[in-house]
């Protein structure tokens, strides 16, 4: 365990950024999102949740796959280079890093997504434990511990001091490279333990932390899919993509071509199951109503994903959708509605 004063973090960032790219939460135009560090950046480590999840660092909203150039009658195809430089993402939360595990399941299992794999190989994650979890959080429901994030380096900010604990080899390597700024703090482990206990105590007071997932598993397909509840639940849904675009685990993407006038850029961008052209094929669309699209999102997270991934849910309880849905719909309301129908209440 090491420590550094919170006021000295800027020199830490400067040092990290001298050797590699550094992404961290910044206030840009009044909104906190992950962005590359610069001297002018307004770093914000106090805001609990960035608007967009930091999955962008590994799976960008939009990325080029290859470029086709036309020169007279000749066509040339240039594949996009894979990430070759190492980079650091600082300030992810426990739920965000749990989100990466979900993405790993999707992109690192056969066939491996080389773009994602390259970023994962070159990225080091420094995760911050939560100090003041909020009412929209429900990470514990999915087995995520906001007091002790799983990452390459776990960090806690307690009374103006950042405690730094390397966990993995990558974390050790990063620690070595910035050691000149860190002070050993093994004797202060007690403080960190006390903070963890305090945060876990706060967590128990939050309304959603003890939500029951009973009945949601890979075997629940038939029963949940045909439930008449979906017809009721989807009604306020505006069919926008907010929930999917702020989500740390949503992984669906679309591949499109952009005509540059002198060639084509083939890129992929996040897709949203809320959109009418989601999974559009030559024969048309296999989900023709908003109810079906709405159902897809929750069935995917709570039923299909566990069915195919040894019971792992593809929700980590970060609560971004709870905060951002324009119609105040969210996964918690869905889970609870099914519970209420079953006659038991959380």
């Amino acid at each position: 365990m090491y420590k550094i004063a919170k006021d000295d973090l800027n020199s830490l960032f400067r040092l990290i950024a001298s050797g590699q790219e550094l992404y961290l939460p910044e206030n840009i135009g009044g909104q906190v999102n992950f962005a590359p560090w610069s001297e002018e950046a307004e770093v914000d480590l106090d805001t609990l949740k960035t608007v967009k999840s930091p999955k962008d660092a590994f799976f960008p909203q939009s990325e080029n796959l290859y470029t086709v150039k036309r020169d007279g009658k000749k066509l040339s195809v240039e594949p996009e280079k894979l990430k070759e430089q190492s980079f650091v993402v600082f300030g992810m939360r426990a739920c965000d890093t749990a989100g990466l595990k979900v993405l790993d399941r999707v992109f690192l299992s056969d066939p491996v997504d080389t773009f994602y794999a390259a970023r994962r190989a070159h990225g080091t994650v420094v995760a911050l434990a939560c100090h003041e979890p909020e009412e929209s959080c429900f990470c514990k429901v999915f087995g995520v511990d906001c007091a002790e994030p799983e990452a390459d380096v776990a960090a806690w900010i307690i009374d103006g001091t950042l405690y730094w604990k390397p966990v993995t080899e990558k974390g050790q390597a990063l620690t070595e490279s910035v050691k000149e700024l860190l002070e050993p703090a093994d004797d202060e482990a007690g403080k960190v333990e006390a903070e963890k206990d305090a945060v876990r105590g706060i967590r128990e007071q939050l309304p959603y932390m003890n939500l029951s997932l009973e009945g949601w598993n890979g075997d629940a397909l038939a029963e949940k899919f045909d439930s008449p509840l979906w017809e009721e639940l989807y009604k306020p849904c505006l069919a926008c993509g907010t929930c999917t675009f702020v989500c740390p685990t949503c992984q669906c993407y679309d591949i499109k071509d952009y005509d540059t006038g002198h060639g084509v850029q083939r890129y992929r961008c996040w897709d949203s199951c809320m959109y009418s052209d989601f999974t559009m094929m030559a024969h048309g669309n296999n989900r023709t109503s908003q109810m079906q699209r709405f159902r897809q999102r929750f069935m995917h997270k709570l039923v299909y994903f566990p069915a195919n991934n040894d019971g792992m849910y593809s929700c980590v309880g970060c609560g971004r959708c709870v905060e951002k849905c324009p119609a105040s719909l969210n996964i918690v309301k869905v889970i609870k509605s099914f519970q209420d129908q079953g006659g038991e209440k959380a």
Partner: protein
Amino acid sequence: MQELINRAKELLADNTVARVLGWRAGDLPYDPEPAYFETEDALKDFVYNGFCGANLSKYMIEASKLEGKTLVFLKPCDTYSFNQLLKEHRVDREKAYIIGVGCKGKLDIEKIRKQGVKGIRGISGAEMTDDADVLTIDTIYGEKTCAYQDVMLGRCHVCKGKEHKVYDELIGESRETTDAERFAEVEAIEAMSPQERFAYFKKELSKCIRCNACRNVCPACSCRKCVFDSNKFDSSQKANADSFEEKMFHIIRAFHVAGRCTDCGECSRVCPQGIPLHLFNRKFIKEIDQLYGEYQAGEDTESKAPLTDYTFEDAEPSIIGERG
């Protein structure tokens, strides 16, 4: 609120309406969702408070296709949208029973959070019956207070007025909330240099994540299929690869609703990234007022919209550069 529930129950009981379109209370004090209620029993979850900012007019497009009448609760500003939809034949007046509800300004949870409030357990002062000017917020990190005025949605500061433009009956009093000039924000931007304006919009629009919430919530965006959803041309509805796409999307969207936008402010309310999208619409409204005479969309159901009308003496486009 009880008055609204009682009246809704009566109208359901005597079969005047087949369903009620209102807001259902959520688990958190600030997250009521737009909802249909079909039975008197279901109305126990009905809520109407300061967080019911959602404009239900848009939902009336779908409700107009259902059997029977729908009772809908509309705030004064929502009635402008309903009128505009009526003018465009997107909703059916015969299918709607409109109760105009009072409004004392709607609240913006993001503004409350920006004041450093977190871990919210309860909020008092947001009820319609409260005449409080202060919200008292119970959080797990202690009690906080916010001045009601400070955490209102931006649109309420330039409220169009307390009058409902279309209704069958009225319940509840409204409060005057206007405390700013409607076009002040637009004028502040106009006063900047072109470089500053460009930098301002670049910064704001680069936050756009193309979630389409602004479009989908907009009562004026009622096309069955949006041009930005067409797979027949590369309008790329999802990518945010380059700032140009965002610029084009927002300019064209504002253009498509120009002369039809009632300035209800839903676009800015729902934007997850807090982009002041209403500025585009308000700029058009300001120009239309100045160039073609004052016009308020949704004021009535008869008048011709400015962009489907002309006069022989209209200003030439060169006026934009000439007036400096």
